């Protein structure tokens, strides 16, 4: 029930932000469509802790800030190597272990790796990640496992 409520709140906020017309008629359309979509999702059995990760609400903003910092630093490094030319890169494929307990945690970790320029997740099987790194330094940075620990901490 809590998850249905969270989903309805999110959908309503999404509608209000995208609509911009606040007349009674349009708002009643919103109520009808939100109830319909929430009912559909409930019937499809997709409204659960995985699609509405409420337990991450307070722990994830801090992680986002750290991730933004990492993304900016990695961007500058990769941009520098673009201008230095192909000689400056040293591609590697590495296998690392994801220590998260849930599927959602592992997806957050794998997506964070891909979001950071210089590293792309190639495959995720069980708890093993196959990652392509543009440089030795990027590969070494992942092997230290700092991102892994931070995602595990977000997961709680």
């Amino acid at each position, binding site marked *: 029930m809590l998850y249905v409520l969270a989903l309805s709140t999110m959908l309503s906020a999404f509608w209000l932000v995208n609509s911009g017309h606040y007349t009674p008629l349009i708002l009643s359309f919103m109520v009808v469509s939100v109830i319909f979509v929430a009912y559909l999702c409930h019937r499809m059995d997709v409204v659960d802790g995985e699609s509405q990760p409420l337990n991450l609400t307070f722990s994830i903003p801090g992680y986002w800030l750290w991730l933004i910092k990492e993304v900016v630093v990695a*961007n500058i490094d990769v941009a520098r190597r673009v201008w230095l030319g192909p000689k400056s890169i040293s591609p590697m494929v590495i296998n690392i272990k994801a220590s998260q307990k849930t599927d959602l945690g592992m997806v957050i970790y794998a997506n964070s790796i891909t979001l950071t*320029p210089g590293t792309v997740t190639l495959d995720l099987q069980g708890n093993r990640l196959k990652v392509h790194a543009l440089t030795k330094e990027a590969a070494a940075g992942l092997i230290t496992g700092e991102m892994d620990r931070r995602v595990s901490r977000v997961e709680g």
Partner: protein
Amino acid sequence: MEILFDIVSWICLVAGSFFCLTGGIGLLRFPEFFSRIHAASITDTLGAGLIMIGLMFQAGWGLVLAKLILILLFSLIAGTTASHAMAKAALKSGLQPQVVGTMDSETGGAPSKS
């Protein structure tokens, strides 16, 4: 205040354009598929991000700001997913990355499930 916002906005827009250009050049300059993906992800993240932030300063408080934030979040998530899907598809169809080496962080014990 108006002029300050304009200056910050233009700095973001120009820097964003520079990163988009860098991504495009990297796409042409890097030797093979897997390293080119990394160049494309510069355009996805800091390039698009800085341009969006520059536009947010132009938009001021209001609905447009909220919509720009939604666009930014969507493009970040979609870009990541697309990069991963492309890399995985390339690997599955037999394209092997040219690498200088491989590493394994096997810390003992844990058997791989694959």
